[in-house]
């Protein structure tokens, strides 16, 4: 270090300060470009990035953010506890130990209650929450905006409008979910089309989404007002978002999409690394910001629409879960795994609270998540003002 400072003071000595002779030779041959800067010029390369863990196996290396990993482990534990609690509490309370026994070995007196009655609904909460958490993380990352999420940029409203039309039109129950899925995807397509100028600039994309979301909200109201009262009532209940009376079929609906999205999510985990940078800087690093935003946004839209189609508009999960994970991990953007686990835990807990708080009256999970989401927004506002 001292040699460097000396070199800095005297411009004449500058050339000696950094002897990188191997560089120029290596530069001319593109094949050698990957060998890095002047091997040997630095006696102590940092073996790992501060705050990260490196996993190595031959030529394969994986870089993991240490705190994000710890947070994921902690959120995983919270989720496991929430799932056990959700399976324990109900009209009949099953001790947590018994719940675990039912799940692991079976053959207990609680098999019916836990496996047949509670597990399907809890599983749905887990998969829907996972999808919401991932969708929120993706949308917030590409828009570089903690307030953007599928329920803010119109995807949820698109699904809601399609479901409302289906319900108000007296369509068969089996058609509601597919209509909602299609509606959500159409809304996403509209947002992308409207925001597509200037390479789908982050700001523009969010504004287009907010516009689409308000327009769709108005259309939902119009359909509700003009619909038959009973159909409108059914649509209202759907719009709030509830897991009541839902289970295996709906879980499969979300689960299939989640599994199908796994390769895309693996790609996303890498593509997300440069989303926090502005477009010019990202482009300078060889990324394609517009294509990346479209790809990541599309994965998020599919996940959000798939989950909304099955459980309705469980608001705020996609907004809150990624930010909870991000704040805990201290990362520049929501960590994917953490956001998924936080989303799952949030929906499981919201559904459990909805079932038990005013029992025997059941509150839809969507009411509970909205009740958490409101104060959370106020918190963001207060925190933003302070800094």
């Amino acid at each position, binding site marked *: 270090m001292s040699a*460097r400072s000396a070199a800095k003071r005297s411009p004449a000595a500058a050339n000696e300060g950094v002897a*990188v002779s191997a560089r*120029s030779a290596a530069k001319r041959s593109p094949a050698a470009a990957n*060998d890095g800067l002047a091997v040997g010029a630095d006696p102590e390369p940092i073996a*790992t990035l501060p705050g990260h863990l490196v996993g190595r196996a031959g030529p394969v290396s994986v870089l993991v953010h240490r705190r994000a990993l710890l947070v994921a482990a902690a959120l995983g534990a919270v989720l496991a506890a929430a799932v056990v609690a959700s399976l324990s509490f109900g009209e009949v309370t099953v001790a947590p130990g018994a719940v675990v026994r039912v799940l692991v070995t079976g053959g207990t007196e609680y098999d019916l209650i836990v496996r047949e009655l509670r597990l399907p609904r809890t599983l749905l909460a887990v998969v829907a929450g996972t999808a919401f958490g991932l969708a929120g993380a993706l949308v917030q990352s590409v828009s570089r905006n903690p307030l953007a999420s599928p329920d803010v940029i119109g995807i949820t409203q698109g699904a809601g409008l399609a479901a409302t039309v289906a319900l108000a039109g007296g369509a068969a129950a089996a058609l509601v979910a597919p209509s909602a899925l299609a509606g959500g995807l159409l809304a996403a397509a509209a947002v992308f089309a409207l925001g597509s100028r200037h390479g789908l600039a982050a700001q523009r994309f969010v504004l287009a989404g907010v516009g689409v979301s308000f327009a769709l909200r108005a259309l939902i109201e119009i359909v509700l007002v003009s619909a038959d009262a009973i159909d409108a009532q059914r649509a209202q209940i759907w719009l709030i978002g509830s897991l009541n009376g839902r289970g295996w079929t709906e879980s499969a609906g979300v689960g299939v999409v989640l599994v199908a999205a796994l390769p895309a999510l693996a790609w996303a985990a890498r593509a997300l690394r440069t989303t926090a940078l502005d477009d*010019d800087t990202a482009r300078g*690093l060889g990324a394609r910001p517009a294509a990346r935003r479209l790809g990541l946004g599309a994965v998020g839209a599919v996940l959000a629409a798939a989950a909304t189609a099955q459980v309705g508009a469980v608001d705020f999960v996609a907004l809150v879960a990624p930010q909870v994970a991000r704040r805990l991990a201290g990362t520049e953007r929501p960590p994917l795994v953490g956001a998924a686990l936080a989303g799952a835990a949030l929906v499981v807990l919201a559904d459990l609270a909805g079932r038990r708080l005013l029992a025997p009256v059941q509150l839809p999970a969507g009411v509970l998540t909205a009740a958490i989401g409101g104060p959370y927004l106020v918190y963001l506002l207060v925190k933003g003002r302070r800094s």
Partner: protein
Amino acid sequence: MTAALTTVDIIAGYEDRTVLNGLSVEVPTGRFTVVIGPNACGKSTLLRTLARLLRPRAGTVLLDGADLHRLPPREVATRLGVLPQSPLVPEGVTVAELVARGRSPYQRWWRQWSSADAQAVATALRLADVADLAERPVEALSGGQRQRVWIAMALAQDTEVLLLDEPTTYLDLAHQIEVLDLLRRLQRDGRTVIAVLHDLNQAARYADHVIAMRDGAVVAAGPPGEILTAALVRDVFGLDCVVVPCPVTGAPLVVPGAGQPQPVIDEGVISA
């Protein structure tokens, strides 16, 4: 003199206006090239076109003879390092994390942190003199430190060419000189450095090659000692001045206001 980057008759601009209209210019290999010119003359547009950030509507940009805008973005990122004008600092990112981002073009999902990455990041941190700040959040740094961190990120890219858009803006004089000294050291190590600068005297002092622009066209290009004259400054900036040899380096020194009593305002310097 070979050219690292060449533009041939490029027409470039933004949706509603054309900024560069048939501009041809060469950036010599291994030299420190500085682009000067008044506000809105197209300096940044030229730099963004050279950096592959902006695709020209017509004409070609050549990187060592190959069409820059047809090369794969990742390959370009291993050959051209770019520092945009005011890059966005991601919230909560540490210096080392940001500098490591410069390795993106070399990384794949199965190779996220190679020994070459570790080596290049360590070297970049040291060259830009920010190794001591490695674990600090970038947001917490001063403007001068931050600028050196961004330069370190571009250095981690390990490219033969570095392009910088007004790297000294918002820095105090000492930090401006620090950044320019660093750029000159990097150039002397064998890199081609191209920067947009506002200060003519800094351009004269640090550049081997100056490109003077006005209204989207090149007015003059060459070594500062040859082209930086009072006539050129009047032509490019509409400013009367006297050019004298700098007492420290002998490079041209532009002193505004050639004895005329009328006030001339330029770049915040008012002389009567």
